[in-house]
Protein backbone atom coordinates (compact mmCIF):
# COMPACT_ATOMS: atom_id res chain seq x y z
CA UNK A 1 0.00 0.00 0.00
CA UNK A 2 2.70 2.45 0.96
CA UNK A 3 4.62 1.98 -2.28
CA UNK A 4 2.15 4.08 -4.25
CA UNK A 5 3.43 7.31 -2.77
CA UNK A 6 6.82 7.04 -4.48
CA UNK A 7 5.84 8.91 -7.66
CA UNK A 8 4.30 11.89 -5.90
CA UNK A 9 6.56 14.93 -5.51
CA UNK A 10 5.11 15.52 -2.07
CA UNK A 11 7.15 12.57 -0.86
CA UNK A 12 9.98 14.99 -0.19
CA UNK A 13 8.12 16.76 2.57
CA UNK A 14 10.21 14.98 5.11
CA UNK A 15 7.61 12.77 6.76
CA UNK A 16 8.58 9.15 7.14
CA UNK A 17 6.85 6.78 4.78
CA UNK A 18 4.93 4.86 7.41
CA UNK A 19 3.18 8.03 8.57
CA UNK A 20 1.77 8.43 5.07
CA UNK A 21 0.33 4.96 4.82
CA UNK A 22 -3.47 4.66 5.01
CA UNK A 23 -3.06 1.96 7.63
CA UNK A 24 -1.42 4.46 9.94
CA UNK A 25 -4.30 6.86 9.36
CA UNK A 26 -6.73 4.13 10.23
CA UNK A 27 -4.92 3.39 13.47
CA UNK A 28 -4.67 7.11 14.21
CA UNK A 29 -8.43 7.61 13.99
CA UNK A 30 -9.45 6.14 17.38
CA UNK A 31 -6.77 8.23 19.09
CA UNK A 32 -8.13 11.39 17.48
CA UNK A 33 -11.62 10.47 18.69
CA UNK A 34 -10.21 9.92 22.16
CA UNK A 35 -8.52 13.31 21.97
CA UNK A 36 -11.78 15.02 21.01
CA UNK A 37 -13.50 13.20 23.84
CA UNK A 38 -10.95 14.52 26.37
CA UNK A 39 -11.29 17.99 24.89
CA UNK A 40 -15.07 17.93 25.36
CA UNK A 41 -14.61 16.46 28.84
CA UNK A 42 -12.42 19.35 29.94
CA UNK A 43 -14.35 22.14 28.20
CA UNK A 44 -17.97 21.09 28.60
CA UNK A 45 -19.53 22.38 31.78
CA UNK A 46 -21.41 19.24 32.66
CA UNK A 47 -21.67 17.13 35.75
CA UNK A 48 -22.58 13.92 34.03
CA UNK A 49 -20.32 13.86 31.00
CA UNK A 50 -17.88 11.02 31.68
CA UNK A 51 -14.21 10.71 30.95
CA UNK A 52 -13.04 7.79 28.80
CA UNK A 53 -11.67 6.04 31.93
CA UNK A 54 -15.05 6.21 33.64
CA UNK A 55 -16.72 4.60 30.63
CA UNK A 56 -13.99 1.98 30.36
CA UNK A 57 -14.37 1.08 34.03
CA UNK A 58 -18.14 0.90 33.62
CA UNK A 59 -17.85 -1.37 30.58
CA UNK A 60 -15.34 -3.60 32.34
CA UNK A 61 -17.65 -3.95 35.35
CA UNK A 62 -20.55 -4.78 33.07
CA UNK A 63 -18.58 -7.48 31.27
CA UNK A 64 -17.18 -9.01 34.44
CA UNK A 65 -20.55 -8.70 36.18
CA UNK A 66 -19.10 -6.78 39.11
CA UNK A 67 -21.36 -3.74 38.86
CA UNK A 68 -24.57 -5.63 39.49
CA UNK A 69 -24.15 -5.02 43.19
CA UNK A 70 -24.32 -1.29 42.84
CA UNK A 71 -27.09 -1.02 40.27
CA UNK A 72 -29.37 -3.85 41.18
CA UNK A 73 -32.33 -2.19 39.49
CA UNK A 74 -31.24 -3.62 36.15
CA UNK A 75 -32.89 -6.99 36.34
CA UNK A 76 -30.60 -8.99 34.10
CA UNK A 77 -26.91 -8.77 33.30
CA UNK A 78 -25.56 -7.73 29.94
CA UNK A 79 -25.22 -11.26 28.54
CA UNK A 80 -28.84 -12.08 29.29
CA UNK A 81 -30.04 -8.79 27.82
CA UNK A 82 -28.06 -9.23 24.62
CA UNK A 83 -29.17 -12.86 24.48
CA UNK A 84 -32.82 -11.86 24.72
CA UNK A 85 -32.40 -9.39 21.88
CA UNK A 86 -30.52 -11.92 19.77
CA UNK A 87 -33.25 -14.50 20.36
CA UNK A 88 -35.99 -12.05 19.33
CA UNK A 89 -33.97 -11.01 16.32
CA UNK A 90 -33.46 -14.59 15.17
CA UNK A 91 -37.09 -15.62 15.57
CA UNK A 92 -38.37 -12.51 13.80
CA UNK A 93 -35.73 -12.87 11.15
CA UNK A 94 -36.77 -16.41 10.22
CA UNK A 95 -40.40 -15.40 9.99
CA UNK A 96 -39.39 -12.48 7.76
CA UNK A 97 -37.25 -14.77 5.64
CA UNK A 98 -40.04 -17.27 5.00
CA UNK A 99 -42.69 -14.62 4.42
CA UNK A 100 -40.43 -12.49 2.26
CA UNK A 101 -39.23 -15.41 0.15
CA UNK A 102 -42.78 -16.50 -0.64
CA UNK A 103 -43.99 -13.02 -1.58
CA UNK A 104 -40.73 -12.18 -3.34
CA UNK A 105 -40.82 -15.31 -5.48
CA UNK A 106 -44.43 -14.65 -6.42
CA UNK A 107 -43.64 -11.02 -7.28
CA UNK A 108 -40.65 -12.03 -9.36
CA UNK A 109 -42.54 -14.65 -11.33
CA UNK A 110 -45.84 -12.86 -11.93
CA UNK A 111 -46.19 -9.25 -12.98
CA UNK A 112 -49.74 -9.17 -11.67
CA UNK A 113 -48.68 -10.17 -8.17
CA UNK A 114 -45.92 -7.61 -8.43
CA UNK A 115 -48.39 -4.83 -9.22
CA UNK A 116 -50.60 -6.02 -6.37
CA UNK A 117 -47.94 -5.79 -3.66
CA UNK A 118 -45.44 -3.24 -4.97
CA UNK A 119 -46.67 0.01 -3.41
CA UNK A 120 -47.44 -1.57 -0.06
CA UNK A 121 -44.04 -3.19 0.19
CA UNK A 122 -42.45 0.17 -0.53
CA UNK A 123 -44.63 1.83 2.09
CA UNK A 124 -43.63 -0.65 4.79
CA UNK A 125 -40.01 -0.35 3.72
CA UNK A 126 -40.04 3.42 4.18
CA UNK A 127 -41.96 3.44 7.47
CA UNK A 128 -39.93 4.70 10.42
CA UNK A 129 -39.34 2.19 13.22
CA UNK A 130 -40.71 4.71 15.69
CA UNK A 131 -44.24 4.35 14.31
CA UNK A 132 -44.54 0.63 14.83
CA UNK A 133 -42.51 0.76 18.03
CA UNK A 134 -45.06 3.05 19.66
CA UNK A 135 -47.97 1.12 18.22
CA UNK A 136 -46.69 -2.33 19.20
CA UNK A 137 -46.03 -1.18 22.75
CA UNK A 138 -49.66 -0.23 23.16
CA UNK A 139 -51.16 -3.07 21.17
CA UNK A 140 -49.18 -6.03 22.47
CA UNK A 141 -47.80 -4.89 25.78
CA UNK A 142 -44.33 -5.59 27.13
CA UNK A 143 -43.99 -9.15 25.91
CA UNK A 144 -41.62 -10.57 23.32
CA UNK A 145 -44.35 -10.55 20.68
CA UNK A 146 -44.04 -6.84 19.94
CA UNK A 147 -40.27 -6.82 19.37
CA UNK A 148 -40.44 -10.00 17.26
CA UNK A 149 -43.18 -8.46 15.13
CA UNK A 150 -41.02 -5.35 14.76
CA UNK A 151 -38.23 -7.46 13.24
CA UNK A 152 -40.75 -9.01 10.85
CA UNK A 153 -42.06 -5.61 9.80
CA UNK A 154 -38.59 -4.18 9.32
CA UNK A 155 -37.01 -7.21 7.64
CA UNK A 156 -39.66 -8.60 5.31
CA UNK A 157 -39.62 -5.81 2.68
CA UNK A 158 -35.85 -6.21 2.26
CA UNK A 159 -36.18 -9.95 1.73
CA UNK A 160 -39.02 -9.43 -0.75
CA UNK A 161 -37.11 -6.89 -2.82
CA UNK A 162 -33.96 -8.96 -3.05
CA UNK A 163 -35.67 -12.25 -3.84
CA UNK A 164 -37.83 -10.56 -6.48
CA UNK A 165 -34.75 -9.07 -8.05
CA UNK A 166 -32.99 -12.42 -7.94
CA UNK A 167 -35.79 -14.14 -9.83
CA UNK A 168 -35.78 -11.40 -12.43
CA UNK A 169 -32.04 -11.75 -12.89
CA UNK A 170 -32.12 -15.46 -13.58
CA UNK A 171 -30.74 -15.83 -17.12
CA UNK A 172 -33.69 -16.68 -19.35
CA UNK A 173 -31.51 -18.25 -22.06
CA UNK A 174 -30.28 -20.89 -19.64
CA UNK A 175 -33.78 -21.88 -18.64
CA UNK A 176 -34.92 -21.90 -22.26
CA UNK A 177 -31.95 -24.02 -23.25
CA UNK A 178 -32.54 -26.44 -20.40
CA UNK A 179 -36.13 -26.77 -21.59
CA UNK A 180 -35.17 -27.48 -25.17
CA UNK A 181 -32.69 -30.14 -24.04
CA UNK A 182 -35.38 -31.61 -21.82
CA UNK A 183 -33.49 -31.22 -18.56
CA UNK A 184 -35.74 -32.27 -15.65
CA UNK A 185 -37.28 -29.43 -13.64
CA UNK A 186 -35.58 -30.24 -10.35
CA UNK A 187 -32.21 -30.13 -12.08
CA UNK A 188 -33.05 -26.74 -13.59
CA UNK A 189 -34.02 -25.47 -10.17
CA UNK A 190 -30.86 -26.81 -8.57
CA UNK A 191 -28.35 -25.78 -11.22
CA UNK A 192 -29.83 -22.64 -12.73
CA UNK A 193 -32.37 -20.94 -10.52
CA UNK A 194 -30.78 -21.50 -7.11
CA UNK A 195 -27.22 -20.47 -8.04
CA UNK A 196 -28.39 -17.29 -9.68
CA UNK A 197 -30.69 -16.60 -6.74
CA UNK A 198 -27.96 -17.21 -4.16
CA UNK A 199 -26.29 -13.79 -4.06
CA UNK A 200 -29.63 -12.06 -3.80
CA UNK A 201 -30.76 -14.43 -1.12
CA UNK A 202 -27.60 -13.73 0.78
CA UNK A 203 -28.04 -9.96 0.43
CA UNK A 204 -31.58 -10.42 1.71
CA UNK A 205 -30.32 -12.20 4.81
CA UNK A 206 -27.73 -9.59 5.53
CA UNK A 207 -30.02 -6.61 5.03
CA UNK A 208 -32.90 -8.13 6.91
CA UNK A 209 -30.66 -8.90 9.87
CA UNK A 210 -29.11 -5.43 10.00
CA UNK A 211 -32.34 -3.54 9.47
CA UNK A 212 -34.32 -5.87 11.71
CA UNK A 213 -31.85 -5.23 14.50
CA UNK A 214 -32.10 -1.45 14.13
CA UNK A 215 -35.88 -1.62 14.25
CA UNK A 216 -35.79 -4.04 17.14
CA UNK A 217 -33.74 -1.93 19.52
CA UNK A 218 -36.01 1.07 18.99
CA UNK A 219 -39.03 -1.13 19.63
CA UNK A 220 -37.44 -2.48 22.80
CA UNK A 221 -37.29 1.06 24.14
CA UNK A 222 -41.03 1.58 23.82
CA UNK A 223 -42.48 -1.92 23.85
CA UNK A 224 -40.39 -4.07 26.14
CA UNK A 225 -39.04 -4.36 29.66
CA UNK A 226 -35.81 -6.10 28.74
CA UNK A 227 -33.30 -6.45 25.92
CA UNK A 228 -30.49 -4.25 24.61
CA UNK A 229 -32.72 -1.33 23.63
CA UNK A 230 -34.39 -1.30 27.00
CA UNK A 231 -31.05 -1.44 28.83
CA UNK A 232 -29.59 1.63 27.10
CA UNK A 233 -32.87 3.43 27.77
CA UNK A 234 -32.55 2.44 31.44
CA UNK A 235 -29.20 4.23 31.73
CA UNK A 236 -30.63 7.18 29.84
CA UNK A 237 -33.56 7.44 32.25
CA UNK A 238 -31.15 7.15 35.16
CA UNK A 239 -29.16 10.09 33.74
CA UNK A 240 -25.97 8.06 33.82
CA UNK A 241 -24.10 9.26 30.75
CA UNK A 242 -21.32 6.74 31.29
CA UNK A 243 -23.91 3.98 31.11
CA UNK A 244 -25.43 5.33 27.90
CA UNK A 245 -22.06 5.81 26.22
CA UNK A 246 -20.79 2.47 27.49
CA UNK A 247 -23.78 0.67 26.07
CA UNK A 248 -23.57 2.63 22.82
CA UNK A 249 -20.05 1.24 22.46
CA UNK A 250 -21.34 -2.26 23.25
CA UNK A 251 -23.91 -1.79 20.46
CA UNK A 252 -21.21 -0.80 17.99
CA UNK A 253 -19.03 -3.76 18.98
CA UNK A 254 -22.03 -6.06 18.58
CA UNK A 255 -22.83 -4.72 15.12
CA UNK A 256 -19.22 -4.84 13.93
CA UNK A 257 -18.77 -8.36 15.27
CA UNK A 258 -21.87 -9.48 13.40
CA UNK A 259 -20.61 -7.93 10.18
CA UNK A 260 -16.99 -8.98 10.34
CA UNK A 261 -17.19 -12.33 12.11
CA UNK A 262 -20.45 -13.73 10.75
CA UNK A 263 -21.46 -12.14 7.47
CA UNK A 264 -18.12 -11.43 5.81
CA UNK A 265 -16.80 -15.02 6.16
CA UNK A 266 -20.21 -16.38 5.12
CA UNK A 267 -20.21 -14.19 2.03
CA UNK A 268 -16.71 -15.26 1.10
CA UNK A 269 -17.62 -18.90 1.42
CA UNK A 270 -20.91 -18.59 -0.44
CA UNK A 271 -19.44 -16.84 -3.46
CA UNK A 272 -16.06 -18.44 -3.84
CA UNK A 273 -17.15 -20.08 -7.08
CA UNK A 274 -18.41 -16.89 -8.58
CA UNK A 275 -15.93 -14.33 -9.90
CA UNK A 276 -18.19 -11.33 -10.21
CA UNK A 277 -21.81 -10.42 -10.22
CA UNK A 278 -22.78 -8.49 -13.28
CA UNK A 279 -26.40 -7.64 -12.90
CA UNK A 280 -27.05 -4.01 -12.09
CA UNK A 281 -30.10 -1.94 -12.79
CA UNK A 282 -32.26 -4.46 -14.55
CA UNK A 283 -35.50 -3.54 -12.94
CA UNK A 284 -37.40 -0.37 -13.53
CA UNK A 285 -39.11 1.70 -10.90
CA UNK A 286 -38.46 2.35 -7.25
CA UNK A 287 -36.98 -0.92 -6.18
CA UNK A 288 -33.99 -0.54 -8.47
CA UNK A 289 -32.05 1.50 -5.99
CA UNK A 290 -32.20 -0.98 -3.16
CA UNK A 291 -31.60 -4.01 -5.31
CA UNK A 292 -28.70 -2.57 -7.23
CA UNK A 293 -27.19 -1.69 -3.91
CA UNK A 294 -27.51 -5.31 -2.99
CA UNK A 295 -25.53 -6.18 -6.06
CA UNK A 296 -23.00 -3.46 -5.37
CA UNK A 297 -22.64 -4.74 -1.86
CA UNK A 298 -21.75 -8.16 -3.13
CA UNK A 299 -19.29 -6.77 -5.62
CA UNK A 300 -17.58 -4.84 -2.90
CA UNK A 301 -17.16 -7.89 -0.77
CA UNK A 302 -15.43 -9.69 -3.56
CA UNK A 303 -13.25 -6.95 -4.91
CA UNK A 304 -12.49 -5.45 -1.50
CA UNK A 305 -11.95 -1.87 -2.48
CA UNK A 306 -12.77 1.58 -1.22
CA UNK A 307 -15.11 2.42 1.60
CA UNK A 308 -16.93 -0.44 3.27
CA UNK A 309 -20.48 -0.29 2.03
CA UNK A 310 -21.50 -3.16 4.17
CA UNK A 311 -24.95 -1.95 5.04
CA UNK A 312 -27.87 -0.65 3.06
CA UNK A 313 -27.48 2.92 1.96
CA UNK A 314 -31.15 3.63 1.89
CA UNK A 315 -33.99 2.53 4.03
CA UNK A 316 -32.30 2.03 7.35
CA UNK A 317 -33.37 3.77 10.44
Amino acid at each position, binding site marked *: *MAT*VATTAPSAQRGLPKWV*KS*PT*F*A*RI*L*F*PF*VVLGIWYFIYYTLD*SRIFPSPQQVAVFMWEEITLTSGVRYSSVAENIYVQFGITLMRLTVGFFIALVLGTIIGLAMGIS*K*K*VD*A*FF*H*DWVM*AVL*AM*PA*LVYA*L*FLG*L*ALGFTSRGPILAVVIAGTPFVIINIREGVRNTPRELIDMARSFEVPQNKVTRHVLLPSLMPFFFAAIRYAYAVG*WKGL*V*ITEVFASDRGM*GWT*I*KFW*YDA*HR*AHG*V*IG*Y*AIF*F*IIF*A*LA*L*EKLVFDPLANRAFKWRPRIDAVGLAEG*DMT*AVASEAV*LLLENQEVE*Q*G*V*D*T*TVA*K*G*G*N*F
Partner: protein
Amino acid sequence: MATTLEQQAPGPRSAEEARLLALRKKEIRDRWIWRIAGYVFFLLAWALVSQIVGPNLIPGPVRIAQTIPQLIESGRFFSSFGATLTRIGIGFGLAFVLGIVIGVLTQSRWLDGFFKDAVTISLVSPSLIWALTGIVIWGFEPQGWIFAIVMTTFAVVTVNVAEGIRALPKDLTDMSRAFGVTNWRRQRDIVFPFLAPFVFTALRFGFSVGWKVTLLTEVFSSNEGIGFEMRVASQLFRMDELFAWAISFFIFALVLEKLVLQRSERKFFRWRAEAVT
Protein backbone atom coordinates in the same frame (compact mmCIF):
# COMPACT_ATOMS: atom_id res chain seq x y z
CA MET B 1 -39.50 -10.06 -28.80
CA ALA B 2 -37.06 -7.22 -28.88
CA THR B 3 -35.13 -8.62 -31.82
CA THR B 4 -38.17 -8.87 -34.04
CA LEU B 5 -38.94 -5.23 -33.35
CA GLU B 6 -35.45 -4.10 -34.25
CA GLN B 7 -35.40 -6.00 -37.53
CA GLN B 8 -38.59 -4.37 -38.76
CA ALA B 9 -37.94 -1.49 -41.11
CA PRO B 10 -39.73 1.75 -40.20
CA GLY B 11 -42.76 2.12 -42.36
CA PRO B 12 -46.34 0.90 -42.41
CA ARG B 13 -47.19 -1.02 -39.31
CA SER B 14 -47.18 -4.73 -39.82
CA ALA B 15 -49.59 -7.12 -38.22
CA GLU B 16 -46.85 -8.41 -35.93
CA GLU B 17 -46.06 -4.94 -34.67
CA ALA B 18 -49.70 -4.14 -34.05
CA ARG B 19 -50.04 -7.34 -32.09
CA LEU B 20 -47.04 -6.45 -29.92
CA LEU B 21 -48.40 -2.97 -29.32
CA ALA B 22 -51.76 -4.38 -28.26
CA LEU B 23 -49.96 -6.81 -25.98
CA ARG B 24 -48.02 -4.00 -24.35
CA LYS B 25 -51.20 -1.98 -23.84
CA LYS B 26 -52.86 -4.93 -22.25
CA GLU B 27 -49.89 -5.38 -19.97
CA ILE B 28 -50.08 -1.80 -18.75
CA ARG B 29 -53.82 -2.07 -18.22
CA ASP B 30 -53.37 -5.32 -16.29
CA ARG B 31 -50.77 -3.70 -14.12
CA TRP B 32 -53.11 -0.90 -13.15
CA ILE B 33 -56.00 -3.26 -12.48
CA TRP B 34 -53.88 -5.37 -10.15
CA ARG B 35 -52.41 -2.34 -8.51
CA ILE B 36 -55.85 -0.96 -7.68
CA ALA B 37 -56.90 -4.43 -6.56
CA GLY B 38 -53.96 -4.37 -4.16
CA TYR B 39 -55.04 -1.02 -2.72
CA VAL B 40 -58.61 -2.19 -2.30
CA PHE B 41 -57.50 -5.44 -0.69
CA PHE B 42 -55.13 -3.92 1.82
CA LEU B 43 -57.43 -1.06 2.79
CA LEU B 44 -60.33 -3.46 3.29
CA ALA B 45 -58.13 -5.84 5.28
CA TRP B 46 -57.06 -2.94 7.46
CA ALA B 47 -60.66 -1.87 8.04
CA LEU B 48 -61.65 -5.45 8.82
CA VAL B 49 -58.83 -5.96 11.33
CA SER B 50 -59.78 -2.66 12.94
CA GLN B 51 -63.37 -3.85 13.30
CA ILE B 52 -62.32 -7.18 14.81
CA VAL B 53 -59.67 -5.88 17.20
CA GLY B 54 -61.55 -2.72 18.04
CA PRO B 55 -61.26 0.73 16.44
CA ASN B 56 -59.75 2.20 19.59
CA LEU B 57 -56.71 -0.04 19.36
CA ILE B 58 -56.35 -0.14 15.58
CA PRO B 59 -58.27 2.75 14.04
CA GLY B 60 -59.48 2.09 10.51
CA PRO B 61 -58.43 4.11 7.47
CA VAL B 62 -61.63 6.16 7.46
CA ARG B 63 -61.23 7.25 11.05
CA ILE B 64 -57.60 8.25 10.49
CA ALA B 65 -58.62 10.23 7.42
CA GLN B 66 -61.16 12.04 9.59
CA THR B 67 -58.62 12.76 12.31
CA ILE B 68 -56.22 14.66 10.07
CA PRO B 69 -58.64 17.60 9.44
CA GLN B 70 -59.24 17.73 13.21
CA LEU B 71 -55.52 18.10 13.80
CA ILE B 72 -55.34 20.86 11.20
CA GLU B 73 -58.22 22.66 12.91
CA SER B 74 -56.52 22.43 16.30
CA GLY B 75 -53.69 24.53 14.88
CA ARG B 76 -50.93 22.16 15.96
CA PHE B 77 -50.60 20.56 12.56
CA PHE B 78 -48.63 23.17 10.68
CA SER B 79 -46.59 24.33 13.65
CA SER B 80 -45.50 20.73 14.24
CA PHE B 81 -44.59 20.31 10.60
CA GLY B 82 -42.66 23.57 10.80
CA ALA B 83 -40.76 22.47 13.91
CA THR B 84 -39.83 19.11 12.42
CA LEU B 85 -38.81 20.57 9.09
CA THR B 86 -36.61 23.12 10.86
CA ARG B 87 -34.86 20.30 12.69
CA ILE B 88 -34.41 18.33 9.50
CA GLY B 89 -33.14 21.43 7.74
CA ILE B 90 -30.48 22.18 10.36
CA GLY B 91 -29.50 18.63 11.33
CA PHE B 92 -29.62 16.99 7.96
CA GLY B 93 -28.18 20.08 6.29
CA LEU B 94 -25.07 19.83 8.46
CA ALA B 95 -24.85 16.07 7.98
CA PHE B 96 -25.14 16.51 4.23
CA VAL B 97 -22.33 19.06 4.07
CA LEU B 98 -20.09 17.01 6.35
CA GLY B 99 -20.83 13.86 4.37
CA ILE B 100 -19.89 15.51 1.08
CA VAL B 101 -16.69 16.98 2.53
CA ILE B 102 -15.56 13.61 3.87
CA GLY B 103 -16.60 11.91 0.65
CA VAL B 104 -14.51 14.32 -1.44
CA LEU B 105 -11.59 13.93 0.97
CA THR B 106 -11.52 10.18 0.35
CA GLN B 107 -9.68 10.95 -2.89
CA SER B 108 -6.63 10.93 -0.70
CA ARG B 109 -5.80 7.39 0.34
CA TRP B 110 -4.56 8.58 3.70
CA LEU B 111 -7.81 10.37 4.56
CA ASP B 112 -9.77 7.45 3.16
CA GLY B 113 -8.05 5.21 5.68
CA PHE B 114 -8.61 7.76 8.40
CA PHE B 115 -12.40 8.00 7.93
CA LYS B 116 -12.98 4.39 6.95
CA ASP B 117 -13.91 3.13 10.39
CA ALA B 118 -16.00 6.20 11.19
CA VAL B 119 -18.13 5.55 8.11
CA THR B 120 -18.49 1.84 8.87
CA ILE B 121 -19.47 2.48 12.48
CA SER B 122 -22.03 5.08 11.48
CA LEU B 123 -23.55 2.71 8.92
CA VAL B 124 -23.91 -0.33 11.17
CA SER B 125 -25.05 1.34 14.39
CA PRO B 126 -28.70 2.06 15.10
CA SER B 127 -29.84 5.68 15.29
CA LEU B 128 -31.10 5.04 18.83
CA ILE B 129 -27.63 5.05 20.37
CA TRP B 130 -26.71 8.41 18.83
CA ALA B 131 -30.01 9.93 19.85
CA LEU B 132 -29.64 8.82 23.47
CA THR B 133 -25.93 9.66 23.66
CA GLY B 134 -26.37 13.13 22.21
CA ILE B 135 -29.29 13.98 24.41
CA VAL B 136 -27.82 12.60 27.62
CA ILE B 137 -24.72 14.74 27.07
CA TRP B 138 -26.26 17.99 25.85
CA GLY B 139 -29.81 17.73 27.16
CA PHE B 140 -32.33 19.80 25.24
CA GLU B 141 -29.60 21.97 23.72
CA PRO B 142 -29.56 21.81 19.93
CA GLN B 143 -26.12 20.15 19.97
CA GLY B 144 -27.76 16.97 21.25
CA TRP B 145 -30.09 16.34 18.38
CA ILE B 146 -27.70 17.78 15.82
CA PHE B 147 -25.11 15.25 17.02
CA ALA B 148 -27.65 12.43 16.66
CA ILE B 149 -28.78 13.38 13.16
CA VAL B 150 -25.25 14.02 11.91
CA MET B 151 -23.83 10.78 13.30
CA THR B 152 -26.62 8.71 11.78
CA THR B 153 -26.79 10.37 8.39
CA PHE B 154 -23.37 11.60 7.31
CA ALA B 155 -22.06 8.16 6.35
CA VAL B 156 -24.96 7.55 3.97
CA VAL B 157 -23.98 10.71 2.11
CA THR B 158 -20.27 9.88 2.27
CA VAL B 159 -20.71 6.40 0.83
CA ASN B 160 -22.61 7.72 -2.17
CA VAL B 161 -20.12 10.50 -2.84
CA ALA B 162 -17.21 8.08 -2.40
CA GLU B 163 -18.82 5.86 -5.01
CA GLY B 164 -18.65 8.80 -7.41
CA ILE B 165 -15.00 9.34 -6.50
CA ARG B 166 -14.29 5.72 -7.28
CA ALA B 167 -15.96 6.05 -10.69
CA LEU B 168 -13.98 9.21 -11.48
CA PRO B 169 -12.55 8.99 -15.03
CA LYS B 170 -8.94 8.17 -14.33
CA ASP B 171 -7.64 9.37 -17.70
CA LEU B 172 -8.86 12.91 -16.98
CA THR B 173 -7.28 13.11 -13.55
CA ASP B 174 -4.07 11.57 -14.85
CA MET B 175 -3.90 14.05 -17.69
CA SER B 176 -4.54 17.00 -15.41
CA ARG B 177 -1.64 15.80 -13.23
CA ALA B 178 0.62 15.38 -16.22
CA PHE B 179 -0.06 18.95 -17.33
CA GLY B 180 0.52 20.29 -13.85
CA VAL B 181 -3.02 21.55 -13.24
CA THR B 182 -3.40 22.75 -9.66
CA ASN B 183 -5.35 20.62 -7.24
CA TRP B 184 -8.04 23.24 -6.73
CA ARG B 185 -8.69 23.59 -10.45
CA ARG B 186 -8.78 19.81 -10.84
CA GLN B 187 -11.37 19.61 -8.10
CA ARG B 188 -13.45 22.44 -9.55
CA ASP B 189 -13.36 21.46 -13.21
CA ILE B 190 -13.22 17.67 -13.13
CA VAL B 191 -14.25 16.25 -9.77
CA PHE B 192 -17.20 18.45 -8.82
CA PRO B 193 -19.06 18.33 -12.14
CA PHE B 194 -18.56 14.59 -12.25
CA LEU B 195 -19.84 14.16 -8.70
CA ALA B 196 -23.04 16.18 -9.15
CA PRO B 197 -25.40 13.26 -9.87
CA PHE B 198 -23.87 11.22 -7.07
CA VAL B 199 -24.44 14.09 -4.67
CA PHE B 200 -28.06 14.14 -5.73
CA THR B 201 -28.43 10.42 -5.01
CA ALA B 202 -26.71 11.01 -1.69
CA LEU B 203 -29.26 13.71 -0.90
CA ARG B 204 -32.14 11.35 -1.60
CA PHE B 205 -30.78 8.43 0.40
CA GLY B 206 -29.58 10.69 3.19
CA PHE B 207 -32.96 12.35 3.49
CA SER B 208 -34.74 9.00 3.75
CA VAL B 209 -32.56 8.16 6.76
CA GLY B 210 -32.44 11.70 8.12
CA TRP B 211 -36.12 12.36 8.63
CA LYS B 212 -36.56 9.13 10.58
CA VAL B 213 -33.82 9.87 13.06
CA THR B 214 -35.16 13.42 13.38
CA LEU B 215 -38.52 12.07 14.53
CA LEU B 216 -36.70 9.84 17.01
CA THR B 217 -34.78 12.76 18.51
CA GLU B 218 -38.04 14.68 18.88
CA VAL B 219 -39.43 11.90 21.01
CA PHE B 220 -36.65 12.33 23.54
CA SER B 221 -35.73 15.98 23.41
CA SER B 222 -38.48 18.25 22.17
CA ASN B 223 -41.72 19.82 23.17
CA GLU B 224 -42.99 20.27 19.63
CA GLY B 225 -42.78 18.51 16.29
CA ILE B 226 -44.19 15.35 14.77
CA GLY B 227 -42.14 12.93 16.88
CA PHE B 228 -43.18 14.70 20.07
CA GLU B 229 -46.85 14.68 19.05
CA MET B 230 -46.64 10.98 18.26
CA ARG B 231 -45.26 10.21 21.70
CA VAL B 232 -47.94 12.32 23.40
CA ALA B 233 -50.66 10.60 21.39
CA SER B 234 -49.33 7.18 22.33
CA GLN B 235 -49.09 8.13 26.01
CA LEU B 236 -52.70 9.34 25.96
CA PHE B 237 -53.68 6.14 24.13
CA ARG B 238 -55.05 8.15 21.21
CA MET B 239 -54.27 5.67 18.50
CA ASP B 240 -56.13 7.60 15.82
CA GLU B 241 -53.99 10.67 16.47
CA LEU B 242 -50.80 8.61 16.57
CA PHE B 243 -51.56 7.13 13.17
CA ALA B 244 -52.76 10.45 11.78
CA TRP B 245 -49.49 12.17 12.71
CA ALA B 246 -47.40 9.29 11.48
CA ILE B 247 -49.20 8.82 8.18
CA SER B 248 -49.47 12.51 7.31
CA PHE B 249 -45.75 13.07 7.75
CA PHE B 250 -44.94 9.75 6.16
CA ILE B 251 -46.87 10.71 3.02
CA PHE B 252 -45.24 14.14 3.02
CA ALA B 253 -41.74 12.63 3.23
CA LEU B 254 -42.48 10.04 0.55
CA VAL B 255 -43.82 12.65 -1.84
CA LEU B 256 -40.76 14.80 -1.26
CA GLU B 257 -38.44 11.84 -1.71
CA LYS B 258 -40.01 10.09 -4.66
CA LEU B 259 -41.68 12.84 -6.61
CA VAL B 260 -39.69 15.98 -5.98
CA LEU B 261 -36.14 14.66 -5.49
CA GLN B 262 -36.30 11.72 -7.90
CA ARG B 263 -38.02 13.70 -10.64
CA SER B 264 -35.65 16.62 -10.42
CA GLU B 265 -32.73 14.22 -10.39
CA ARG B 266 -33.89 12.76 -13.68
CA LYS B 267 -34.54 16.20 -15.09
CA PHE B 268 -31.16 17.67 -14.16
CA PHE B 269 -29.14 14.76 -15.42
CA ARG B 270 -31.09 13.74 -18.45
CA TRP B 271 -28.10 14.76 -20.56
CA ARG B 272 -26.00 12.14 -18.83
CA ALA B 273 -27.44 8.76 -19.54
CA GLU B 274 -25.01 6.81 -17.36
CA ALA B 275 -25.70 9.01 -14.36
CA VAL B 276 -29.44 8.38 -14.38
CA THR B 277 -29.33 4.61 -14.50
